[in-house]
């Protein structure tokens, strides 16, 4: 029964309802063209996978660097003569440090837990028929505290040994492995070049340092012994200071610098003839470098995401052409242009988000495997994952918009006639 008085509806399609409908339509359309949908999102999958995997590995590498550097000791300041950037005063070698400098730092600077001198020489260590080129570090007992070395076997230096510069040594695990494969070294005699010394202890393994060097490839001796028998002078090549974590290491660094300036007569505009390295700063710098590298490689990977987006647009455009008749049917049935547009847009977004999600899962699996293989910690960064996901959605919107608009602009009569 038709009521001739009832007017045609001046109404409009409700937007809230529209979204629910179009999501359903989009999901159905994706299901209808499953293989094509999978191929469409492949670019996004690979893009998200590459970006997230690379960034995760990069974060792991940064974290690993940080851990290794902090394994050197809580927070270590290394004072060296000369300037870091090599602008040392006109050919004059800056004077080495004296034992009195160490005493002054120990006595006058707040926040210092241990102060140790260092004099270094390279030597070939020989035991029985085996020999091994290593580094001899002359220092004091405080060095073990400053750098947080653990004694594995035997004992530390005694005061008497340090004062007298007795020929005794502590051996790093690398040296031990190479010279004492099946023998306890403590108590034996080790020859270093043409110097004989008694092994009084071995050091616990510490592993590779932040720069890839082997911390365990070392032999420690009282500094006076090294000065007398190896370097032939009373120079202290470096001062190792460990700072109390409760203090700001920048303050401690500044106090040491002030003290040394005073003691080395650096006044007015004269440049410092010594340099203080802060292990934490080095760690930060290294992390910074790793971060930059991660950023660059990540950006390259992000380009593949963009390419994936263009792939989506391409296939969506093909899809609009291929589905012209379908669009005609929808329009004839009473879909308004907005609904057709939204359907294609939602299809693109759903597809790219789906691709993003698959990429994230693959990246998670690959990252877990690769971090294990590369021996770096696995750092799950929710921020990176969220950004990658949102970005893939955004790509769907951006690259889906043009095809969607084209679909919505079709004339129903032409679309229905399309072969």
């Amino acid at each position, binding site marked *: *029964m*038709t009521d*001739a*008085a*009832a*007017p*045609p*509806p*001046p*109404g*409009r*399609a*409700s937007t809230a*309802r529209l979204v629910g*409908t179009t999501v*359903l*339509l989009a999901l*159905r359309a994706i299901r*209808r*063209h499953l293989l094509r949908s999978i191929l469409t999102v492949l670019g996004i999958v690979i893009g998200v996978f590459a970006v997230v995997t690379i960034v995760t590995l990069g974060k792991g590498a940064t974290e690993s660097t940080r851990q290794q550097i902090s394994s050197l000791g809580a927070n270590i300041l290394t004072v060296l003569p000369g300037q870091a950037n090599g602008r040392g005063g006109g050919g004059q070698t800056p004077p080495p440090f004296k034992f009195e400098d160490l005493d002054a730092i120990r006595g006058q600077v707040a926040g210092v837990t241990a102060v140790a001198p260092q004099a270094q020489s390279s030597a070939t260590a020989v035991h029985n028929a085996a020999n091994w080129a290593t580094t001899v570090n002359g220092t004091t007992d405080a060095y073990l505290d400053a750098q947080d070395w653990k004694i594995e076997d035997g004992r530390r230096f005694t005061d008497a040994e340090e004062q007298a510069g007795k020929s005794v040594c502590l051996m790093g695990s690398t040296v031990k492995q190479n010279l004492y494969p099946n023998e306890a070294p403590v108590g034996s005699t080790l020859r270093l070049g043409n110097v004989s010394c008694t092994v009084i202890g071995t050091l616990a393994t510490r592993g590779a340092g932040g720069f890839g060097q082997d911390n365990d490839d070392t032999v420690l001796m009282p500094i006076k012994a090294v000065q007398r028998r190896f370097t032939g002078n009373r120079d202290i090549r470096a001062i190792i200071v460990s700072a109390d974590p409760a203090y700001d290491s920048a303050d401690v660094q500044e106090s040491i610098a002030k003290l040394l300036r005073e003691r080395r007569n650096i006044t007015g505009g004269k440049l410092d003839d010594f340099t203080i390295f802060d292990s934490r700063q080095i760690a930060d710098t290294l992390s910074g470098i790793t971060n930059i590298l991660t950023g660059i490689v990540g950006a390259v990977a992000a380009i593949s995401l963009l390419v994936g987006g263009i792939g989506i647009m391409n296939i969506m455009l093909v899809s609009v052409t291929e589905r012209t*008749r*379908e669009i*005609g*049917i*929808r*329009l*004839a*049935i*009473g*879909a*308004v*242009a*907005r*609904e057709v547009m939204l359907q294609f847009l939602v299809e693109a977004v759903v597809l790219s988000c789906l691709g993003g999600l698959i990429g994230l899962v693959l990246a998670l699996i690959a990252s877990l495997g690769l971090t294990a293989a590369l021996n770096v910690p696995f750092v799950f960064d929710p921020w990176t994952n969220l950004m990658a996901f949102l970005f893939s959605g955004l790509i769907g919107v951006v690259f889906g918009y043009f095809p969607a608009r084209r679909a919505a602009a079709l004339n*129903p*009569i032409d679309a*229905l006639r399309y072969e």
Partner: protein
Amino acid sequence: MSQALPSSAPDPLIRLIGVTKRFGSGEAAFQALKGVDLDIMAGDFMAVMGPSGSGKSTTMNILGCLDVPTTGSFLFRGHHIESLGRDQRALLRRRYLGFVFQGFNLLSRTTALENVELPLLYRGDDKRARRTAALAALDQVGLVDWASHTPSELSGGQQQRVAIARAIVTHPDVLLADEPTGNLDSERSLEIMELLTRLNRDRGITVLMVTHEAEMAAFARTVVHFRDGLVERVTTGALAA
């Protein structure tokens, strides 16, 4: 059920007054309709006949709100439709009109049920309402048992019946069919005609159908003959076809 007797029918459901349609412009312009006047009463079953190129499909597209006349008036239930915008026309189609095409035009790889549900989706019905209405429509065309089959698993006649179910699922006032039997053999064609007749008789749906075959036009109550972009003559009742 109002019968379209001239004496008792005050206002026609649809009224075309001096409708012209011009395609293209300048040299290439083509005048497809040259001033069509036509009244269609509610509940009528009208066949549209005429030689190829005489403007049948053009008229159907205008009546179906898929296209607009170049000049002239188109009244639906006494309201002027000719100047409505795209979206307004889409909403009119959604609410009042159903389409059946020569080429069936079902969504491929989509079950009969989902095809029939489609107009309800755009109307915003909830899932249960959609299902109930779609199954009822499929029942009317005798295809409930085929609800879960896709078009490629259905014969041409069955596909056209699914298309009819899709067209009537929204309970439209008017069913527009442009050569609905054009792709079917005569036996299938007769089935479709019987179905359209039943819908017209039992549900009062106004049916407008383009056909080339007098055999099909014989089912109609009114037959409109087109020639050269104009209505040549209208015959009613026993005089039809």
